[in-house]
């Protein structure tokens, strides 16, 4: 049987009206034309139709708050939000968890539809404020009686840029040396005595490093100092455990200079990536592959699991000492609760001159430019920065409070046994923040590339840092030219806000 031809006009249907086909304004054409036009109209309206109401049914103003935290950190801020909402009859804060918050906030602000409050990082402040994407808080802070004295000095500093305050801290962090006491004991070191200088750290790292070497065709496992000089020079061994790696986790390799007293910027027009102290820091960074071998470190690094997993090399006992932030306790608690560990200030190159060096950073709360309810948004930020709410948030996120004073029970209540170390470091005169540069992200990336080149023995510290400096100076000059062209207008806008 032949299949019926596929056609809309069946044999029984009446013949189409020739006149109607000729007349383009007949009803069939009109209907056909209406469809796409209707679609266009719907599309057009769609863009404005999905606005959410900005008031709750009981008439409270809704403050939209974008935050990056998830998991227990998200729950911590939500409980603070719930407290705030319960205390209010005027404002209701609605949290939205946002990944890649920097990019999304930038696009939402450029598009004129930002949230009222956003949780960013300290390194975003210079970039976002200089580009006119944030609301300055000075007037509101003065009215609320909040000032620098209320905060740990370094944390107030990172919220300032170009003479104005752009954010208030939410949860801060400092980093410190974490060491594995069991590994110390096994290697014959005093488990309660962390290194006090970089030279001591290097010497301890050597004693803690455990390798496998082939002798007479058989693999032998031993500590690094037990290798013969020829074996050390040939570097034909496999790293099984290391005492320390300056490239693990590698999050601050652009800032090792801090422990050598170096600066990355002269606070004016010069990028100082290749200052003598920075070069010295980079030489120390590269000394580890010099000693233990580039390929050995590459292979060892490849064997690590995800940071947030039991295969984290510090948690599974393959790296004895790491530079890590205050959050490390959360991961120890979750993945290696039996680990015997301690935390102490990471030793400086010259401990007599430079004590208690740390990199201090913090998450911040900002009001994007164009926010619909800036006053209500500030009300919420102010609440989060009250001592009670801040301590609740920081205890639940297991960090320390950015406020200058904490309640007497804060340290005792804190689950992290080493929290005091991190608080003392935060208040240290040598707590280093990131440079407040609008090109910082690019600068950081360039320094990381330079560090990798030195670590992989592709360049000397002098070459790598001179290249990074020239490249960033070029970018920075361009950025400064741009700022000079727009600063007067920008200052006027900020004065008006």
């Amino acid at each position: 049987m032949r299949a019926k031809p596929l056609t809309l006009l069946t044999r029984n249907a009446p013949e189409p009206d020739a006149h109607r086909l000729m007349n383009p304004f007949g009803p069939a054409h009109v209907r056909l034309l209406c469809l796409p036009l209707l679609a266009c109209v719907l599309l057009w309206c769609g863009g404005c139709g999905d606005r959410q109401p900005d008031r709750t049914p009981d008439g409270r103003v809704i403050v939209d708050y974008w935050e990056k935290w998830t998991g227990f950190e998200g729950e911590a801020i939500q409980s603070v939000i719930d407290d705030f909402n319960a205390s209010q009859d005027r404002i209701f804060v609605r949290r939205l968890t946002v990944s890649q918050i920097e990019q999304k906030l930038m696009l939402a602000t450029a598009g004129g539809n930002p949230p009222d409050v956003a949780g960013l990082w300290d390194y975003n402040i210079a970039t976002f404020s200089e580009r006119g994407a944030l609301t300055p808080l000075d007037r509101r802070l003065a009215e609320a009686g909040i000032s620098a004295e209320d905060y740990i000095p370094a944390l107030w500093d990172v919220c300032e840029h170009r003479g104005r305050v752009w954010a208030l801290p939410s949860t801060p962090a400092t980093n410190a040396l974490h060491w594995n006491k069991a590994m110390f004991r096994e290697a014959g070191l005093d488990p309660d005595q962390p290194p006090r200088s970089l030279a001591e750290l290097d010497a301890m790292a050597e004693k803690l490093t455990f390798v496998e070497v082939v002798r007479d065709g058989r693999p032998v496992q031993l500590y690094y100092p037990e290798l013969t000089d020829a074996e050390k020079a040939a570097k034909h061994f496999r790293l099984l455990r290391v005492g320390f790696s300056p490239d693990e986790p590698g999050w601050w390799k652009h800032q090792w200079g801090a422990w050598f007293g170096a600066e990355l910027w002269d606070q004016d027009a010069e990028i100082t990536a290749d200052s003598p102290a920075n070069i010295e820091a980079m030489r120390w960074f590269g000394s580890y592959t010099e000693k233990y071998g580039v390929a050995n470190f590459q292979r060892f690094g490849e064997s690590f699991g995800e940071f947030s997993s039991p295969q984290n090399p510090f948690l599974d006992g393959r790296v004895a000492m790491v530079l890590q932030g205050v959050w490390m306790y959360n991961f120890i608690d979750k993945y290696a609760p039996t680990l015997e560990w301690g935390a102490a200030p990471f030793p400086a190159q010259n401990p007599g001159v430079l004590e208690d060096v740390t990199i201090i950073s913090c998450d911040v709360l900002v009001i994007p430019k164009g926010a619909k309810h800036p006053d209500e948004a500030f009300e919420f930020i102010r609440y989060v920065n009250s001592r009670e709410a801040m301590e609740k948030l920081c205890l639940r996120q297991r960090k320390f409070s950015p406020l200058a004073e904490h309640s007497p029970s804060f340290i005792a209540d804190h689950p992290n046994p080493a929290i005091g170390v991190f608080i003392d470091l935060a208040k240290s005169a040598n707590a280093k923040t990131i440079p407040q540069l609008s090109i910082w992200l690019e600068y950081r990336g360039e320094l990381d590339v330079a560090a990798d080149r030195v670590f992989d023995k592709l360049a000397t510290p002098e070459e790598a840092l001179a290249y990074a400096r020239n490249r960033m100076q070029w970018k920075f000059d361009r950025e400064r030219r741009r700022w000079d062209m727009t600063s007067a207008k920008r200052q006027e806008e900020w004065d008006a806000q």
Partner: protein
Amino acid sequence: MTRHDRRRLGIGLLFISPWVIGFIAFGLYPIAMAVYYSLTDYDVLREPVWVGTLNYQDMVTDDVFWKALWNTMVYATFSVPLSLILSLLVAVLLNRSIVGRSIFRTCFYIPAIVPLVAVGMIWIWLFNGDLGLINHALSLIGIEGPQWTGDQHWTKPMLILSSVWQIGGSMVLFLAGLQDVPRSLYESADLDGAGPTHQFWHITVPMVSPVLYFNLIMGIIGGVQEFVKPFVMMPDGGPNRSALLFAVYIYQNAFTFNNMGYACAMAVVLFLIILVLTWLANRMVSSRVYYAGD
């Protein structure tokens, strides 16, 4: 043009207006704006400032731009012909009457429909220098595998090898082309005593040359624009930026460093590069393509 013609033209334009409006709003306008922004200093948040050809001049002195361009050219030079040859060979084999042919065809096509982000994540583990299955397989035959992701000399070969795995799309096109080759040609070649190699070079290749040509052009365009896998596998460009591809560098400038003007200028340059490469391929190959209808 009579009044009637004009009216008919108007109605015609009205009918295609949804597409025309869509094309102008989502195609032409963004392209035109990208060209405009390429001549400005623009960071998305502030108003663009006209700088003329400064972005293009900067590109000339930007080492990383040249490095990214070099990486991309090396990647495309190897991955495009390799994928092309391999997909043609697989298609020829799968065109033979073998047992379980449709199962094999499905197996070879499956990689083409796996999401690229997942593919990137899997490859990065396969190429792991210490725990990776690839180095394990090499060790079984007595070869100590390289540090694929850590050694700057091996990152590009790693990207090329992982790209060759996804040949499903072009293989299907080759299969369709192969099925159009008249059997009579092979039969008469058989009678004339031509072996399989001769038949492949003198019948199969010329007869599927339009597909080969199409896959080559699409391969060049796709290869030079390669983004997702390198971005997932090495978001910062790998050791010493050895695997930083052009499109990833554009992304970094546009969305990480906020140099949108510079990124637009690079996108314009990428467009011109693709245009020139396609034109070259067209000039060199098109006269050798055989169309049955001609």
